[in-house]
């Protein structure tokens, strides 16, 4: 599809990346985001390889089914995002708003479920520092009996808690930022701020959104499933 003039690189310039500034800027920014999550995931891999005994089996402490549903929701929000972008490319204002709103709602739901999950885990006694003294999980771990279809819980899950909360927490923070920006874009869409000729905001927020989704798929795999 031939891009309209505003979605080209600035006029009167040497050939650059071939895309408009906002898109190029977002790609560069996502490069730094990749490095950020690389640091967190890299630390996780190193710590887990060194201390495999500090991790419980998948599903023993974390609620995998609920998070799996949540993951599915987030993937759906990528689809709605694509739909929103496709709509505005056709100049369809109504469907743009519908799909953007859907994306906002699903994103917010994801974050809410995550907050709920955290509250549940805190209630059972699993925090960034490990077990909470005197909590249900601490007692189970102390008793040394088999738990939820696996062996006994590890004596200490300090590293498990540290990496779980840091990685998922920062992902959740990214989703929250995405939702807030998406609300901004949605409001602008309701005011007719995007056209078939110029819809840079929609495309750029879409890039970010898909990136955050992709990170979640990696995190879900390595944190919940392995």
């Amino acid at each position, binding site marked *: 599809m031939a891009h309209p003039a505003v979605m080209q690189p*600035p006029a009167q*310039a*040497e050939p650059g990346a071939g895309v408009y500034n906002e898109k190029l800027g977002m790609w*560069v*920014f996502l*490069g*730094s985001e990749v490095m950020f999550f690389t640091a967190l995931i*890299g630390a996780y891999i190193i710590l887990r390889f060194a201390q495999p005994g500090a991790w419980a089996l998948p599903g023993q402490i974390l609620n995998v089914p609920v998070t799996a549903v949540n993951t599915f929701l987030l993937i759906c929000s990528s689809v709605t995002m694509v739909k929103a972008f496709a709509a505005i490319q056709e100049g369809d204002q109504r469907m743009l708003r519908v799909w953007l709103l859907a994306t906002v709602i699903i994103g917010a739901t994801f974050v809410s479920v995550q907050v709920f999950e955290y509250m549940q885990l805190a209630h059972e006694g699993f925090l960034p*520092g490990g077990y909470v003294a005197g909590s249900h999980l601490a007692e189970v771990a102390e008793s040394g009996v088999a738990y939820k279809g696996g062996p006994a819980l590890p004596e200490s899950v300090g590293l498990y808690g*540290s990496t779980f909360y840091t990685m998922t927490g920062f992902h959740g923070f990214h989703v929250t930022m995405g939702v807030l920006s998406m609300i901004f874009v949605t409001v602008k869409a309701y005011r007719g701020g995007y056209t078939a000729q110029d819809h840079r905001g929609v495309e750029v927020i879409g890039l970010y959104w898909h990136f955050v989704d992709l990170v979640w798929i990696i995190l879900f795999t390595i944190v919940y499933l392995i």
Partner: protein
Amino acid sequence: MATTAAAFDHVAHAHIDTRSFIKRYIFSTDHKIIGIQFLIMSLLFLGVGGLLAIMMRWQLGFPGAALPAGGMFPETMAPDGIMLPEFYNSLVTMHGTFMVFFAIMPLLVGVFANFLIPLKIGAPDMAFPRINMASFWIAVPAGLIMLTSFAVEGGAAGAGWTMYAPLSASAEYSGVSTGQMLWSASIVVLGMASILGSMNYITTVINMRAPGMTWFRMPLSIWALFITAILTILAIPILSGAAIMLLFDQLLGTHFFLPPQGGQPLLWQHLFWFFGHPEVYILILPAMGFVSDIIANGSRKPIFGYHSMVFAIMGIGFLGWIVWGHHMFQSGMNPTLGTSFMISTLLIAVPSAIKTFNWLGTTWRGNIRFHVPMLNAVAFVAMFVIGGLSGVFMASTPVDIQIHDTYFIVAHIHYVLFGGSLFALFGAITFWYPKMFGRMMSERWGKVHFILTFIFYNLTFFPMHQLGLGGHMRRIYDPTEYEFLLPMQGINRFITVSAILLFTTQFIFAANFVISWFKGKRAGNNPWQDTGLEWTTPSPAPHGNFPTTPTVYHAPYEFSSPHVAEDYLMQDRKVERIASPTAS
């Protein structure tokens, strides 16, 4: 989201500027004003960093003697003016932190990437002017958080600017709680400013070069700033991630770096230096770029081997990612890894040598003008050679056993960061001052400042090599505790006196900077008879930079070209060519 519109807006406003004072000078989106804001902020922090260093030197030269005016410090820092070990540790830490993160890095990048990139590539402003403004106003609170940490209970962070865990990760070990957390928080906030800035620089350089400004017509300063921005955007998030983990260890009770529950101290070092070594090149590459611009100008010759200079910048930028382990030869890291890190580290000598010899080649058969920027640029070359060569000692794993964590390292880093980056900055500030403020800095006082700084700088830092060889550890509060260091205490006193003189000399620069702002000689468009696009605009450059987008016809350093009568050919000047086999 309306960059293109904003760009046209700039041009329209180029002559009649109707913006309010606050929009023009405080919350400005103009890259030049933001550059000047960064300049003022980072020069202030440079002064803070220098002051901390002098206090530290006082204790080292005269252990146990009351600081002059030390009575003003509270009991928790220096009772009766005699500083406590914990205050000394805070000074060590904060000197390093302020100098690296709040002085040198913003001076090189915040100031000059902002100021120079659009002007030198012929763009009206940055790609994202508002994000640019945000970058500055995020950096300011980061600096204030860091400064405030001196005032909180327990004092400022005291685990060294490298923040080796677990000392940094638990107040149980360091005695500093809030100060350590503020350090981590400030670094994370500053990281956001760096990332936003770099995103801007990269986008601007790629997408907004004026017609004719091809990649290989970009001045080396722009090349260096571009590669630096790439290093920054990839390295800073690693530091942010590590600092967040450190902050959580301190704040939320996580165990990333705390061994009792399986955390790994070496993980911190790997993360820190994986960021830290690219950071070292973030702190030197722009300086190399400015020096290349200035030496070509001072020698009135095209830079020698422009293409290899560009590839050397890229080579250094690349090698920066695979050498971090050389900070960790004695850390308990696998010694076999040490050997591979030694080899990659030694290879950095190659691009560094290319650059040095090419600068020499540029002066060869030149027609050299000794203006203040040129003097400082030449000093950069002379001092960078020392700093680079002393690096070979540390790169060699067995020799590093003796000099690691001693004053030899302190000498090395200061030969690179002060002898290198700071001399380049003195040169660059003087060189581009007229374009920033429309007036020249005083040539006479610039020379006085240069000569005194050059002398006292060498007297301060060169003897540190000897201290290090003799086994003088870094970061010790009182060297006289060790009998084997007593014979070298005279050197310590000598260094302290030199350092105080060096610090005092900087008031000449400060006075020259401030007075010239109001009283300096008015500058024309092109006071240095340079070839860059920034010199085609009035001084100071107006909002929007260029009345019409310039077109570029030449390579960046066409000095003494046979095609024109003058000894400089500006990049946007179209000339009928005489047959020219060499010119490009």
